[in-house]
């Protein structure tokens, strides 16, 4: 693999950065939060991003996608992460899109993925359950077979963008105990289906999420993705892909948090000099810079490993997530400290990054979780 952007990727990066800077500054995310906007992001902007081809980057041309890879997608997502753009990339592209793309058949691609790529249909991924923490296979929601397919019952929490989703990819269990490998299935459920109830949640980092309750929801066979009960390995791959999408967002966020901090170090005067001249702060800033550089290398490597189908994929995803978790939290915490008192105010953006850093760290496994996973995958 080559750990350098291609000319095309450089171009995508520039376009995305310009677009996000102009159309989606942090102030927009802040305004949506303050007005408790019902949608929490801009449907128009999402549609535009789809028209620019960003939503379809990692999906096949048969569904209107670009047939490109995660190495290309992460360049766009990093730009979005820089400005905390609330559009549903992680949920629709990273999670639900990956699920339908990897496991769905041609008819399902046409019915669900094509409108997703066009920005016309929002699909969320209903996986997490209360108390599940980071164990991907811990699923209690049941899928009970009946004459017409399956009937789903259970409660999903922190379903990203679930409050406005048109449909869900629901992870449910056809058999087995609560953390077993066997028995895991993926099911498409329209939000309008009988027995589905959605309740919006409010998170510390303002990322949109909802509780999705399923009460005896009927799923016909054409909405079963892959083999009902046999998709644990696919679930791992979906989460790995989504994790790298989140890592790219984190990379953007940590870079921006650091840039804001660096600018402040060069402008804030105390003791008759700019505080950036103090060695006590300089060295810490240099450390943050190094950690961001290392994170970037790991995210680039993991995205390329996913695209190439490397045998090391899961290890490299864990490497990237562990690194990004620690580095983003460090960059944001150091940022608040270096901003001093104003860093604690809601008015300054650095606090928004600190909240997002922590929320991202605690999604798809923190650094300790991924070190454990690395060790297991390395045979110790």
């Amino acid at each position, binding site marked *: 693999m*080559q*750990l*350098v952007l291609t000319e095309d990727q450089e171009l995508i990066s520039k376009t995305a950065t310009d677009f996000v800077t102009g159309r989606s500054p942090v102030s927009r995310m802040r305004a949506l939060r303050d007005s408790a906007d019902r949608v929490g992001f801009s449907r128009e902007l999402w549609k535009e991003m789809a028209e620019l081809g960003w939503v379809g980057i990692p999906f096949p041309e048969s569904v209107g996608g670009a047939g490109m890879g995660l190495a290309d997608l992460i360049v766009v997502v990093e730009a979005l992460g820089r400005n905390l753009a609330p559009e549903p990339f992680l949920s629709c592209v990273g999670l639900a899109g990956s699920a339908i793309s990897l496991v769905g058949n041609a008819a399902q691609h046409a019915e669900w993925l094509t409108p997703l790529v066009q920005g016309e249909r929002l699909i969320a991924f209903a996986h997490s359950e209360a108390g599940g923490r980071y164990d991907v296979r811990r699923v209690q929601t049941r899928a009970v077979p009946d004459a017409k397919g399956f009937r789903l019952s259970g409660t999903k929490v922190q379903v990203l963008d679930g409050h406005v989703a048109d449909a869900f990819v629901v992870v449910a269990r056809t058999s087995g105990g609560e953390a077993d490998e066997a028995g895991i299935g993926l099911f498409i459920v329209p939000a309008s289906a009988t027995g589905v109830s959605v309740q919006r949640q409010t998170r510390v980092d303002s990322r949109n999420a909802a509780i999705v309750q399923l009460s005896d929801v009927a799923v016909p066979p054409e909405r079963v993705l892959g083999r009902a009960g046999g998709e644990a390995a696919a679930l791992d791959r979906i989460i790995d892909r989504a994790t790298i999408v989140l890592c790219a967002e984190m990379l953007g966020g940590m870079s921006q948090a650091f840039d804001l901090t*660096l600018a402040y*170090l*060069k402008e804030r005067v105390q003791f008759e000099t*700019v505080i*950036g*001249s103090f*060695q006590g702060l*300089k*060295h810490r*800033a*240099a*450390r943050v*810079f*190094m950690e961001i*550089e*290392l*994170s*970037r*290398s*790991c995210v*680039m*490597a993991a995205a390329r490993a996913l695209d190439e189908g490397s045998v090391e994929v899961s290890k490299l995803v*864990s*490497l990237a997530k*562990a*690194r990004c978790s620690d580095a983003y939290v460090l960059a944001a915490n150091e940022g608040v400290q270096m901003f001093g008192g104003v860093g604690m105010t809601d008015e300054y953006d650095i606090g928004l990054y600190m909240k997002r850093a922590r929320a991202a760290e605690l999604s798809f496994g923190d650094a*300790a979780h991924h*070190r*454990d996973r*690395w*060790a*297991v995958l*390395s*045979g*110790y």
Partner: protein
Amino acid sequence: MADLERFRSETRAWLQDHAPKSLIDQKFSDIEGTWGGRKASYTNPDLKVWLDVMGEKGWTAPTWPSAYGGGGLSDDEAKVLAQELAALRLPPPLIGFGLTMIGPTLLRFGTEEQKKEHLPRICRGEIRWCQGYSEPGAGSDLASLQTRAVRDGDDFIVNGTKVWTSYADYCDWIFCLVRTDPAAKKQEGITFLLIDMETKGVSVSPILLISGKSPFCETHFNDVRVPVRNVISKINGGWTVAKALLGHERTMIADTFGAGARGGARRQRSLLADHASRYLGESEGRVADAVLRDAVAQSEMDTRAFGFTVQRSRDAGKAGHQPGAESSMFKIYGTEINMRRNELMVRIAGPQALGWEGPGFDEQEIEITRDWLRSRGNSIEGGTSEVQLNIIAKRVLGLPD
């Protein structure tokens, strides 16, 4: 491409004809022949044979011009040569500061006469070089060095002491920073000077380190007469040369730690993990001590992240991007990874890491302990981590003094 493949097959055939078979898969210690020099001792006489045939061909310094004793190879050809040496499991015919530090410096800053005088002797392994930079009173603040060189006709008279001169007791020549203008601003009164260590007035005393052994020495200069023609670049212009050379040194240090680590990371289980299983036991296929197991994973992952970052920097270089202050970042991170790994090895071995010598401790345990002690110097030598952080803050982040 066809030319390169022809070069590969010719190279392989030549190496098979000329390389002594007794050297295959052998490792050699620091003081053995592979460093060359007048004082070289050859535990295996074939090392000298190997040095001579490779030196004759110029392949001890493959990319240097053949006019100066090098191989005149392109970068691609040199890469092929390195690959073929590795494939035949042969040791390098020659290593040392001549090849990695003073040679490249002479190629860039030396006069034609200086290149002709020194480079061929480096290529043939006749002269072993050491570095005279730090002084007892000039460590991180290198530019405050006080070794004086006073002009006397066509000579300088040198007085002072250099410290941390690695392997000075085995070396033949030393490249030094000396003060030639005490009145100038401190960076501007420094000259880069080459000194033959057989000159009258040069003496060397080894330094014992906390690890119980050491390559380091103090080198004293007492009225040492050095010809002015041994000045590299301009009189009082040595600081520029010194900084360029320090860049080489940091890259070399980072490569040393990054390269060793990269090989290990690709194995299914690392040496560190094996070490942990041996001393801590396993439970259900996992290292039994959860805290140390986590530290092993952290260490392996840090190493891998570092390896990818070094690769990214190289890939960017190949794609034509300008390098930043990477050598400083790599120096800090590479050395710190190595130091943490050494500490972890000791913590895993537990009380078995407490041996200095003698019964009750095996050879490997003694080595772990000695390596840990030696590694504490990694973040100090070649410019402390703090100095590197200053460089990053200034040159990359643009933070003011």
